[in-house]
Every structure is written in C-alpha cells, then in structure tokens.
C-alpha cells in the first residue's frame, strides 16, 4: 500500500515538475525568442593569466560566453540579454544566483559557469538555471586542451539547446563548402571548411582545378567531392585530418553528385557515359560497385534515407526534372514530386520524415520540403537563384547557396551561403571570407 502511494506520488510530482520548467517549442516559427542571460564564465586571476599567455585572449571566460551568446542568437529561438544590465557578479552567480535580480531584467533562463587552468588543461563547469522556477536545469563540467576553447562554447550551447528544446543541438559542427573567387566566366573554386559560426575558416585545395559539391561523411571527418583534376571530372575522397585524397569514381566517363550512405561505408553517385547518367554505389571497404538505376534519362543527385533503406534522387524520365524515391536496391521507383515546376537536389532529412529540395517555377528558385511520399509540400524561401540545401544534423535548419542576378553589363555576380529554419523563419546569410556555394553540414563533432 505504501509503495502504491509512493508511485502515485511520484507520478503526480514528476510531470508537474517538468511542466514548471521552461521549454522552447522549435516546431513552429518562434517570433518571441526566450530571454536568456549569459553571465560571463568566471575565472580566477591565476588561470586568466595562464590562458592569456597560451591563447592571447585577455579573458577566456568572457570569450567563451560570447560564443554561446552568438550561437543562441543565430538560432532565432533565444534572445541573449545585454550584459550591462546584469547585477550579479559572474563568480557569485555561478554559486547561487539571486533569482530576483535576474527576474528583474526579464531573464527566463540563466547560464553561469567557471573556467580554470588545471594541469595545462582548460576545465569548464557550467550551469543552466530556470529563473522563474528558481531551479538548476543542467550542471556539467569537462576538461579539454586550451586550444579547444571555441568548441567549449559550442558544446555548452548544444547542452543548453537540448535541455530547453528537447532536441539535440547543431553548434559543435563544421561546414564544408566551395569558396569562389574571380569573374563569373572564369571562377576559381576551392574546398573550404569552417566552424558552423564561420570561425576557423581553412582552404583545403589551392584552386588549381575546379572542385564542386563536397559532402561530409555522417560518421567521420571524411569528405567526398567532385574534382576536375587533370580535366577528368571524378568523385574523390578526402580525409580532412590527414589531407589524404584519393579518387573513388574512376570510371571511363564522368562521376559526380557523390554522397555518403548513413553508416559512412558507401558512396552513392552518378556516373555519366554516352549521354546517359545512372546512379551507382561503391562500397569503400571492398570497392564493389553496384548499379542502382537503369533508365536512358538523367538520374542524379541521389541521397539515402537515414535508415539506409531508401534513396531519393532526381530524374527527368517524365520529360522534366522531378524527384523520385526507390528502395536502396533500385526497385520500386516512384515519382513523388507532382507540383508545378521542376524539382532537383532532393536531400533526405536526418530525422527521416522530410525531403528538402530545390524547385524552379516561373523563373524563380525555391528551397522547400515535402514528406517522403511527396505530400505536404512547403516552400520556405523564394529567390532569383538558390539551390542545394543541406540539413543541420538535428534536421531543424537548412543551409544552401544563393546567386545574384547580374546587371545589363553582366556585372554584380555573387554567391553566398544562407540558412533558414525548417519553420520558414530565421532566414540569414552565413558569413564567409569569399563568395561561397555548395555547403554541407557535418554531424555533431562531440558525442
């Protein structure tokens, strides 16, 4: 009897407790971002001096909290409050926040923390507080090499995002893309990689040959892309850590449009020969090649479903570019796009429920999503030219590229990366040092 009472008691207590804590709904456009205070991570003077020597940053605690703030702001779901209004000092706030003070500046959530220098390492602890309920929601500590300080900011943001939205974040990630320079008729293109927030930009190729469509392996730091090395357009594999490159699609013809399978063990790509493009897979371990489609039309832009059981792709077998879905062995081919216009670049969401695409209709380009059976088509953004969406690892944000219309003299061309939430809100340009196209989002680097 006592046990029964206890269970009932727990059942009542737990839901009401979780109900009382704040939640952010990411399933609809968030026009009212959650006010959040990011108190600078506190740091003792000795640690501060050590990090200043190693990292050339005056106060690494403040720098890390800036990263968290920018991440939260660009997500569109949070509104980080101005630090000038903070009443409590960072070190005291981390011990025990005076919730009335934070309530006063309308903060609903509060992030506090502490950085210290320990055995040549960077030790961070942080806490997420529900200001209204006056409760701690997350408390975590971890240690890493000091040069990883930016990632520390991203990992904290991921934890905060996950606790408040109930879904994994996408901040400790990188984006590989094609950096572009020069006139439109003679573009120089290089592979480039950067953190999700644009930091640590690095060029991976020199620009001697044309490179296109880099894509991350979802399970490792490998990338597959198309290179025109020696004027032979072929699919290549690149290990970002070692810089090792190898050709994987060396068939007598052109291989292009590569992507990894969800387990990272196969590459799926198009192979064009004698005026016909078909879809093939190659097993990276034993190099066994399988032909998946068999049709005299163009079959390209293949993308696996996250369970690996299906493939969506682009074909003009109906006479025009449309999106099709088939089983991963090539059987049961079904057209799923039936709206007005042309459809291209289908990409399966990492959550499995949606396919993102590019659509051309009446001279305008759209980025949109539809369910995997083609129903529920929703266009997120319209522009003169945009294409090639890539999903954030949590399936909540799409990154793509946009090109501008040139003027009467053919000038004014530019290509930039943009991102938009699945809700259609929070459309923003992703800053890159040069013009940019063909973005691909990595998986979460940690966990």
């Amino acid at each position, binding site marked *: 009897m006592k046990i029964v009472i206890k269970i009932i008691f727990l059942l009542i207590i737990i839901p009401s407790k979780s109900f009382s804590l704040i939640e952010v709904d990411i399933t609809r456009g968030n026009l009212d971002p959650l006010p959040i205070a990011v108190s600078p991570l506190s740091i003792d003077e000795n640690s501060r001096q050590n990090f200043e020597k190693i990292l050339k940053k005056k106060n690494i605690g403040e720098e890390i909290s800036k990263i968290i703030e920018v991440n939260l702001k660009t997500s569109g779901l949070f509104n980080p409050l101005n630090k000038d209004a903070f009443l409590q000092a960072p070190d005291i706030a981390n011990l025990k926040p005076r919730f009335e003070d934070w309530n006063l500046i309308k903060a609903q959530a509060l992030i506090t923390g502490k950085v210290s220098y320990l055995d040549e390492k960077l030790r961070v602890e942080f806490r997420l507080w529900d200001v209204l309920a006056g409760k701690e929601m997350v408390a975590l500590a971890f240690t890493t090499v000091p040069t990883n300080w930016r990632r520390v900011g991203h990992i904290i943001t991921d934890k905060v995002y996950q606790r408040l939205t109930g879904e994994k974040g996408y901040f400790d990630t990188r984006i590989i893309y094609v950096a572009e320079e020069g006139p439109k008729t003679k573009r120089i293109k290089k592979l480039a990689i950067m953190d999700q927030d644009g930091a640590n930009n690095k060029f991976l190729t020199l620009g001697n040959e044309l490179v*296109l469509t880099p894509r991350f392996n979802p399970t490792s730091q490998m990338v597959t892309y198309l290179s025109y090395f020696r004027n032979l357009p072929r699919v290549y594999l690149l290990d970002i850590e070692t810089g090792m490159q190898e050709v994987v699609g060396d068939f007598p013809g052109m291989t*292009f449009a590569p992507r990894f399978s969800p387990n990272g063990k196969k590459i799926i790509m198009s192979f064009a020969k004698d005026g016909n493009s078909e879809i093939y897979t190659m097993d990276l371990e034993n190099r066994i090649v399988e032909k998946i489609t068999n049709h005299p039309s163009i079959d390209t832009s293949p993308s696996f479903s996250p369970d690996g059981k299906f493939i969506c792709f682009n074909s003009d077998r109906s006479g025009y570019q449309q999106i099709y879905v088939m089983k991963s062995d090539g059987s049961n081919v079904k057209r799923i796009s039936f709206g007005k216009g042309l459809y291209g670049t289908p990409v399966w969401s990492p959550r499995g429920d949606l396919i993102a695409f590019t659509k051309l209709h009446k001279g305008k380009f759209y980025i949109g999503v539809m369910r995997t059976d083609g129903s529920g088509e929703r266009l997120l953004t319209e522009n003169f030219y945009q294409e090639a969406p890539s999903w954030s690892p949590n399936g909540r944000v799409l990154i793509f590229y946009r090109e501008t219309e040139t003027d009467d003299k053919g000038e004014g061309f530019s290509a930039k990366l943009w991102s938009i939430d699945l809700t259609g809100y929070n459309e923003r340009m992703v800053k890159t040092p040069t013009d940019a196209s063909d973005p691909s989002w990595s998986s979460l680097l940690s966990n």
Partner: protein
Amino acid sequence: MKKLRIRNIDQGAIMKLNKILKNTLLLVFACFALSACATSKKTTGQMQGDVYTGTDTVEYLASGVPDRVFFATNESVLTTASRETLRKQAAYLRKNSKITIVLEGHADERGTREYNLALGERRANAAKDYLMTYGISSNRISVLSYGKERPVDSGSNPLAWSKNRRSVTVKAN
C-alpha cells in the same frame, strides 16, 4: 413599357460593348504588331525560339568551320543549324585525320548544378554521335561536361543563357 425600356437599355449596352470590343481589338492588334516588331528585332541573328543563332561568341576551328552548337532550354536535340555546323566540323576532321577533339558540353545557370553536369554531358554526346555518323572515329573524340561552371556570357538574361547552352569542339592536340 418596362420591357421595352429594358430592351433599349440592353441595346445601348450592346452598342457600347461593341464599341469597346472594337477599340480593344484595335489596341490588341496594335500591341501585337509592336511586340512582333520588338521580338523579331531581338531575334534576327540572335535567337530562334530560345536557341542562339548569333555569332558573337563563336570561334572557328578553321576558316568557315564554327566551333560550337547551341541548344534550347533543357534540351540536347541538335537543330538544323547545329547539324550543319557539325557536318562542317566532320568534313574538316576527315581532312585533318590527326586532330583529336574534346567536346565540351555546357548548360545555362538556370538549373541545379548536378542536373546541369548531366545535361552538359548529354549535349556533348549528342554532338559526338552526330560527328560519328559522319565518319569521325569515337577514339578521336572525348567528352567533358562543365555543367553551368564555365559560362561565356555572364549576363542574367535569356540571350546570355542561350549563348551558354552549348557544345564546343576543342582541338586536343
């Protein structure tokens, strides 16, 4: 009485309508004539349908042998003019049997990158097939698709796009 009145009104309305129709018809005709003039001016020597027929960007493999053929949007079908150009190329290549060539296929910027790569390949192969039927051995021809990566005209208008939808025959040796 009432009926008559209504008829009168109706007749008046019909008369008016006729007038309006006549005037608008005249207007429509005028518009048609004008637009026909405008478009024909634009297209003469420039475009037929949306296939480029001008010579602005064309280079020559030899005197009288144009190096490129043009395509309609999303098409890889050779036009009459394209076939004529390719027959000239074939004749030139038969005479100069040591020359090998690359057929570079291109698309305009109004399509997705990957589809355009496939489309460029299809266009270059359409040219290749035609050259082969005129006696050029396939081992003298290689095909290279650039998709939309190498436009000749950086404009964002139908004329620029028509110049970019092309297959160019380039001497490889």
